[in-house]
Every structure is written in C-alpha cells, then in structure tokens.
C-alpha cells in the first residue's frame, strides 16, 4: 500500500491543531484520513512550519499539504492543488470591541496577518501604504497580539475566525466588510504528481457526493458552513 505524507501546520484550529495527546487533529486531519481510506492509501502526518510548508513540499519532504491553504493563481504557478475540499470563504476583519475603524479610508492602523497567506499579500497590496502591516509566523501568534492590544485589526480566514470570535465571549468582534479572496481550499501537490492528484480527487469527489465532507464541515465549524451542497 502506498504511503502519502501529508504536511500540516498544527496551529490553525479548527482546521488543524495538536490535540491534548499531542497528535494532529481537526477538520483537515479527519478529512485527509477519510480520503486516504477511500483512495486505499496510507496516510502519515507531518508537522511543518507554515513558512516553509511549500518549499518543503517541493523539496520532497512530503507529498501533500493540507493546512488551510487557499487555492490562488500565485501558488498555482509553483504547485498543483486538488479539487477544493472547503468552499470559497470570505476573509474577515476582527478587532477588539468598540474599536472605531474607518474602513472607507483605512489608515494609521496596525493590521496583523499570518505571513505567506492570501490575506498577507492582500494586505500588502491594499493597506501597506497607509497602514502598518505586521506579519506573524502563525495565526495563533497574531491572535495573541490582537488579544494583547498590540494590533488594531486582524485579517484572516472567516472559517478560522468564526469559532474564535464566537468563543471569545465578546473579546473580539467582526468589523468592516468581508472580502472574498481565494478560490476555496485545496490540498497542495507537486505539479508532476498527476497520478496522486487523480487518485485524491477521485476519492474527494466520492466523499463530497455522499455528504461526508459537508458532515465534517458541520462537525468542526459549529454547523456554520459554508457547505458544498447549496
């Protein structure tokens, strides 16, 4: 049986994180295991820093990335993606409650993003001239700075922020308008691994068809969606 090494970050709950026993857990882990089972391959999970997750894929240290990675044109130039396993999802701004932020002319604001994400390049392109964009190695670190008041604003995946803002008991709130960037989330692959892509896509399609994927989304994202079946 073929082994597929899957890299994840382990610091992006509920997509992927390390559970109390120290193992990777989360939506992508369950989904990845289901895909492997369906496709009849063995999965092995590897924890890798977000920063170097694409380089290490290319360097051949693993075969697949499942780490809440958006499918973008820029990334498609270097790697290939599976079909999306999570629908396109708007990015959202979160801030401490009561912050008065003028989104019409956003300026002088300290905006936190995770480095190497679509939000980071979006912020760089749209806000960097008038604001301070602070990049963090992990999304958790960015949240910590926001919680500690070192940031005015954070821009991240909606599906990442939703549960956090909901669970924060009013410590954070969404502000401004959501932004739609990215084409959904998929597994990253080396371009030459066309066979593997085909295998995985087939398995994923099967899981989507029988509703398993939506069930997992519902399970991990408090039933909030977005779902494929709409």
């Amino acid at each position, binding site marked *: 049986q073929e082994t597929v090494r899957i890299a994840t970050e*382990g610091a992006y709950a509920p997509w992927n994180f390390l559970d109390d026993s*120290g193992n990777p*857990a989360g939506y992508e882990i369950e989904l990845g295991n289901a895909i492997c089972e369906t496709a009849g391959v063995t999965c092995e999970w590897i924890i890798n820093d977000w920063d170097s997750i694409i380089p290490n894929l290319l360097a*051949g*240290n693993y075969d697949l990335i499942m780490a809440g990675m958006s499918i973008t044109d820029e990334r498609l130039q270097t790697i290939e993606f599976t079909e999306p396993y999570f629908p396109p999802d708007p990015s959202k701004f979160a801030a401490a409650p009561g912050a008065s932020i003028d989104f019409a002319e956003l300026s002088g604001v300290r905006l936190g993003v995770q480095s190497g994400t679509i939000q980071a390049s979006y912020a760089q392109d749209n806000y960097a001239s008038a604001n301070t964009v602070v990049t963090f190695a*992990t999304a958790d670190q960015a949240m*910590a700075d926001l919680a500690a008041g070192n940031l005015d604003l954070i821009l991240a995946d909606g599906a990442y922020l939703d*549960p956090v803002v909901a669970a924060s008991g009013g410590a954070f709130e969404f502000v401004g308008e959501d932004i739609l960037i990215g084409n959904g989330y998929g597994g990253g692959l080396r371009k030459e691994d066309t066979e593997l892509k085909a295998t995985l896509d087939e398995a994923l399609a099967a899981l989507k068809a029988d509703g398993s994927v939506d069930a997992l989304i519902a399970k991990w994202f408090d039933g909030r969606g977005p779902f494929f079946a709409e």
Partner: protein
Amino acid sequence: MIEDIGFWFSYLTNGKHLTWYASFQFTIFAALMGGALAVIFGLAGATMKNSRFMPLRLVGSIYSSIVRGVPDVLFFLFFPLAFEQAVEWVVATQVCSPEAIAAQTAAWPPCREANWFLGTTEYLLLASVSLGLVYGAFATNVIHGALRSVPAGQLEAARAYGMSHSQVLWRIHVRQMWVYALPGLSNVWMLIIKATSLLSLLQIADIVLWADRLGAPNFLPAVGLVHEDWRWRYYLVLFVFYILVTWLSEKGFEAIMRRVGKGILSEARA
C-alpha cells in the same frame, strides 16, 4: 484545592505535554553529538593549522576564520540544506533520465528519483554535524591557541634531553595543552548548548516549537483547555532549563579541570 492540583497535574501530563518533555531528547542529543564532533573538528583544524605543509595550514585557517565570520544560525541553516542538495545532485547524475529531468517542474531536485526524504532523524543528525562544524571552527582556534600557550621552556627542556618530535608532542605538548584549552572549550560547549535552541528552524519538533504551541492562546474548547497567551511561562521553563544545564556543565568542567590541571594550575593545590 485537591481538585486544582489534580487538574494541573493532568493538564501538565497530557499527551501534548508529554510530547514536549520527550522532545528534550532531541536537544540533548544534538548538544552531545555536536559537542563531540566539535572537539574532533577542532583537533583536526588545529592540527592542520599547525601543519608544516602550507596548503593544509591554509585549509585549517580558512575553515576557522570563515565559519567564525558568519552567524551560527546562517551556517546552521545552510549546511543541512546544502548537504541535502549536494547529495541529491550526486544521486541525480546517476539516476535521472533526461525525460525525468524534463518532467520536473520544481526548481529542485533535478528529478523525482533523486529526491532524498529528510525526516526528523536525518535532520537531527545533520543539525548535529552542522553544530559540530560551526563550533569546531571555534574549537580549532581554542586548541590552536592552547598549543601555543604551553610554555616554550617546557618543550625546550624535552628537546634538550633528546626527545623526538612525537615524544615532545604527545608526552608534553598535548598533555599540557588541555589545561589551557579547557576554559575555551567550556565556552564553546556553552555556545553549543545555546545553539540547540535553534533546532526548530530545521523542522525538528523540539522544545522551542512545543513551548510555542503549548503556550499559544486557545479560544476553542474543542481544541483543549481554553487559555490566554501563556507562552512566556513556557519559555521561562526553557530559560530555567538552559540555566540548569549551564550550571551542571560548569560543575563538570570544574571537576575535569581539577583533574587535568594537577600541578599546572595554582588553584589545583588548594
């Protein structure tokens, strides 16, 4: 109260924490292995630097000055990557067919077959070698200096009574050299211990990475205990750990010094 203790006990012994504790082995292994290699490279480097043969002398000197001239992190990152690429390049010249090379879209490796999978073990070994190489350059300098600090009179006396070159070298020179080298080598060892904190930069899930993950704020009950940013507490533990290791090492070196320093050190008398 009892409940509190029970809660904290089970929290601190959950799988995540156990993994953290287990990861100390990587740090300790890298330090010991790196230290041993540093002494070996140091002896080799110093011998080359002392060689009568000009090119060898040059190699020794260039090694010790170039490596010491760049930051340890830089070399520490560079060496494993470069080593991996070099191996892959050599493999590629053997296994890659033109088609395979043409099919390769990524910048590296040349073809899929030449790829070398690096896991934690490989990275750990490479990291240790890398530590050995970097701090071997420092050890080269220390040992070279120590060889020159042995009082000339001690060697002259040996020569004057007809000892051969190798007798002078091994019976007098090297034997006394350790006393002068040990303080410097102890410094190098302290540097190595501290450099082990950089293992996480080489994709090793070491104590630093786990401290970050464990301390990061958590907002989701599904993920585990909900807590705010606790990272500095975890780092404080590492801080204390390193200080303890340093303290132990110092005691160890003092003991060794008393042994080798017999007769040479004035303190050894007391």
